[in-house]
């Protein structure tokens, strides 16, 4: 299937800063694509160039094979990381205003129900909670029944419940075969929602693929954690490589049975032992460690 969005050798310089340095990726229709990276990695700049908000120093962004322009604006839905709405308007009036800016339009009632805004229609937008406001901003992004939806850190600052509600909304959008481009700081969110992810560091993409592919490519071990107070043996002299981190001891192993047997041999209680597979959090930290340290 032809790519719906293509980013080609994107470069963006600011005075004294190279925010984006040769970023290249493409997104197939119907895919939820996650762009991850630490603060300052260049995610938002990349997204803003894709949205047409900023102009690149070099490179281009293609939508359905054409440079982004009026067609893209008509067919894309965008939720910015930070945005303000016109004051003194209700939720309904705000949605109607944005509705009036597009030739295409979503079913208004269905959109309101999907974003759970029915009870908030008459409310002044300044009086919405964080979660309600994000749902409204998502509804605005969907008001033109877009082909592509760009969501820049849509759940940052939301409580866990509001975040889960938002995830279910994005799941609904995905079920409608819409293409979603998502940036997030939450690896759990990316793992849950994204079919494909790209991790950025210092303006470049350093890893790209499906979450499962990336985990498989980077890790072949399992993580065992034991509270430090239960781990009676000195970490330095333990038979396997173990790390003391905060109040727990972590062992990374390729043979879980053997490691557990070793723990039993050292009379270490297993009642509070945790075994988990590697996650995107581990991958993110491992890949961006240098950036974080610098």
């Amino acid at each position, binding site marked *: 299937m032809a790519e719906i969005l293509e980013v080609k050798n994107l470069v963006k310089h600011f005075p004294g800063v190279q925010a984006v340095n040769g970023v290249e990726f493409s997104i197939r229709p119907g895919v939820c694509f996650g762009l991850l990276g630490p603060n300052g990695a260049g995610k938002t700049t990349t997204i803003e160039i894709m949205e047409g908000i900023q102009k690149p120093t070099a490179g281009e962004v293609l939508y359905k094979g054409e440079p982004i322009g009026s067609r893209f604006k008509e067919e894309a839905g965008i939720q*910015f990381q930070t945005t*303000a709405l016109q004051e*003194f*308007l209700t939720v309904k009036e705000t949605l109607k205003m944005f509705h009036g800016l597009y030739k295409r339009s979503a079913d208004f009632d269905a959109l309101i129900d999907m974003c759970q805004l029915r009870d908030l229609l008459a409310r002044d937008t300044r009086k919405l909670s964080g979660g309600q406001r994000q749902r409204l901003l998502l509804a605005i992004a969907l008001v033109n029944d877009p082909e592509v939806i760009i969501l820049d850190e849509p759940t940052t600052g939301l409580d866990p419940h509001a975040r889960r509600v938002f995830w279910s909304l994005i799941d609904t959008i995905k079920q409608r075969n819409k293409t979603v481009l998502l940036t997030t700081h939450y690896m759990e969110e990316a793992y849950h929602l994204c079919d494909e992810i790209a991790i950025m560091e210092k303006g470049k993409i350093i890893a790209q693929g499906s979450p499962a592919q990336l985990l498989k490519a980077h890790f072949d071990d399992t993580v065992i954690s034991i509270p430090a107070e239960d781990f009676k043996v000195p970490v330095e002299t333990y038979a396997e490589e173990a790390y003391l981190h905060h109040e727990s001891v972590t062992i990374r192993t390729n043979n879980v049975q053997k490691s557990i047997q070793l723990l039993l041999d050292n009379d270490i209680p297993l009642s509070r032992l945790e075994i988990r597979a590697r996650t995107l959090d581990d991958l993110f930290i491992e890949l961006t460690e240098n950036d974080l340290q610098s």
Partner: protein
Amino acid sequence: MKRFWAVLKARNLEFLRDRTALAWNFVMPVAFVFGFAFLFSSDEQDVYKIGVYPSSEAIVNHESSFFDMRYVKFIPIDHLPTAIDKVKHHQLDMVIDLNKPSRYWINSTSANGYFLEKLLLAESIKSEDIASIAQLLHVVDVPEKQTVSGREVRYVDWVLPGILAVNMMFSCLYGVGYVIVRYRKNRVLRRLKATPLLVFEFLAAQVVSRWLLTVVMAVIVFVVCDIFVNFFMRGSYVALLVVFATGSLTLISLGLVVAARIKSEELSDGVLNLISWPMMLLSGVWFSLEGVHPMAQKLSQVFPLTHMISAARAIMNDGAGLLDVYPQMLILVGMATVFFIIGSLSFRWE
């Protein structure tokens, strides 16, 4: 057109629901008009202020006709040095000490003091004597006194077009200039930039919204004030409306030029003040520009407010029609066009 209407409707709702701004747009000009009507409503306005020492009794008992003069306020003084100090600070135009030998003080830099001195000294010669002396000497042809007839144009009638225009100026400049900068600062414009909305559609909606609201507000203010103050209106109400509508379009377009790129509300506030204060002082709002420095007169022609007020006064006070004020109208339309083009071409969403 659909996008234009969507933005226009949203902007109108925003303005109409901002009760404080709405009330201010109505209250300020009404308060100004009532204030001026009250201040200048009495039949005799005192032009000069003279402090009289030692007491008011001295004025009553004094034989000089100088103390019967109209348009002069005589203020009893208890402490002479304080009164002299007030002359120094232009709070009094003259102080007279009636104790023998009588004395008077004026500030040599005060025009009022200069004229009062002439009046005081002239009063010592009776007017019949002046005429007879003049005739005797065949030097002065004493002119015959005439009075103007018909309804008088009060100061409040003269100043009203200026007050309405100033109110419209603030509403237009700040209502567009300041609001667009605020939109830019809090990223409302950035959100709109990501939609198919065109710059022209956005700006046209802002202009039309502010224009409608300003003109409607001016009509309401005029009607309310007229009920209580009964303005002198010789010309056509329709012509006056056309002048104000054209003038407000020009001022809104000027606001667009200010708002085109500025990102900071503080800077826009400064620039708007820089534009509005000279306009308010040099457009003939409060006083006639007759006789002011030629440079100031030339400078005043740069301001749209000057032409708007001049046309409005011609209609209200002199009964002029639109054809009579076409030079001012042409200038206003020309300025509006130029300002709108500059504002549109230099506009940035961010």
